[in-house]
């Protein structure tokens, strides 16, 4: 799959990489079980720090989209699909809005529970 990162963009490099993995899942280019490029390889190919790629992968893991294991790389979780990605995106937006309003994570999760 194609990865593009723009050093001049206001979006962080890790976010740019994560967005493209999510887009790959939504478009069907990345299917469940597909392996993501090794962080070392991708960082060399994009000329970014390896930790940037790892940060992107770790975020996707936290969103439940990819699975990571030491020494075995990262791959798309069987549960990951377009809906999952959409929910993760919405959750991100909700968290960002809540931070702006000064809501604590507990208050946000209480609101989500009420909804």
């Amino acid at each position, binding site marked *: 799959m194609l990865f*593009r990162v*723009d050093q*001049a963009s206001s979006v962080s490099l890790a976010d740019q990489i994560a967005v493209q993995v999510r887009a790959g899942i939504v478009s069907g280019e990345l299917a469940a079980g597909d392996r993501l490029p090794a962080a070392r390889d991708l960082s060399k*190919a994009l000329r970014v720090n390896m930790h940037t790629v790892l940060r992107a992968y770790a975020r996707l893991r936290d969103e439940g989209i990819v699975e990571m294991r030491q020494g075995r790389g990262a791959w798309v979780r069987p549960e990951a699909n377009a809906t999952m990605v959409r929910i993760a995106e919405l959750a991100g937006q909700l968290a960002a809005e809540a931070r702006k309003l000064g809501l604590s994570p507990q208050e946000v999760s209480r609101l989500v529970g009420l909804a």
Partner: protein
Amino acid sequence: MTLRIRWAISLVALFPPAVAIGGTGLLWRGTLPERIASHWSDLGAADGSMSAAVVLAVSIAVAAAAAIAGVVIVALPRLTPRAKRASLFWTGAVAGTAAASWLIPSWLTLQAGSAGQAVLGAWIVPMVLCVLYGAIPYAIAPRTPVADSTDGPPPLTLRASEAGAWTRTVTAKLFLYATLVIVALAAAFNVPILLSGNSGSGWFGFTILLIACIVLASFVRLRITVDWRGLRVVSLLLHLPLKRIPLNRIRRADALELRASEWGGWGYRVMPGRSALILGSGPGLVVTTTDDKQFAITLTDPEIPAGLLNALRTRDSDIASSTG
């Protein structure tokens, strides 16, 4: 499509002699006398004999080696289809001769009861005509290459601050099957020969099959990468780069319809000025280097890597011209 199948069938047709030798070798194991007829001065009884096990081992090794040589020649050619068909004829002839030199003497010995009583008679005819076995793969193999088709490379632009990388892992079923065939051959023919504690020819055949197996297996899992360094094809099994074309040596990249017959057949092909990894007919990436050499590889969506290579190339030359 049909051309591909015909090449494949012509290669398969190289193997029946080895299979026949192995099959009859197992079938007659208990019943065949220890020595079989090996030489006739006329159409009468044999006047020379050899150890059946030695004849079996040598003939199967020759037949299998000839068949594999035929596959390799068709697979790695700087050759025209005509030359490949000729090599199919000759490797087929060798395999056929090997089969006849095992099957006929051992069958006659089996019928007569002992080597000394085996009468050649009319069997001289198949004994002589066995070289014509090569005509079978020769006749099956297709004669003509097919014309090229062209598409324009799709546009993709990169800003100066932007980096692009494309990567794809492919499993080449073609090489997987080829590897399995070789492993099956080794198991079916060479292991029994080795277990029976027989001669160097068994080891020779085994070594050839083992090398063929490793070479083929290295092509099963491939990672293809396009980035600022250029194009790379890496074997995931051996962690070895199979092909590397630096960006500054690339003139242009195209997404084309690849036909096996245009690139010399399936597999890793090397021709004068051209090389290719053809894993099946269909779309593929074709890279033309600055010294006008071409490399092609089968890919399901070659437009993206082709576009990226062209974009990287254009940007590099823009930067070079603006700074220099």
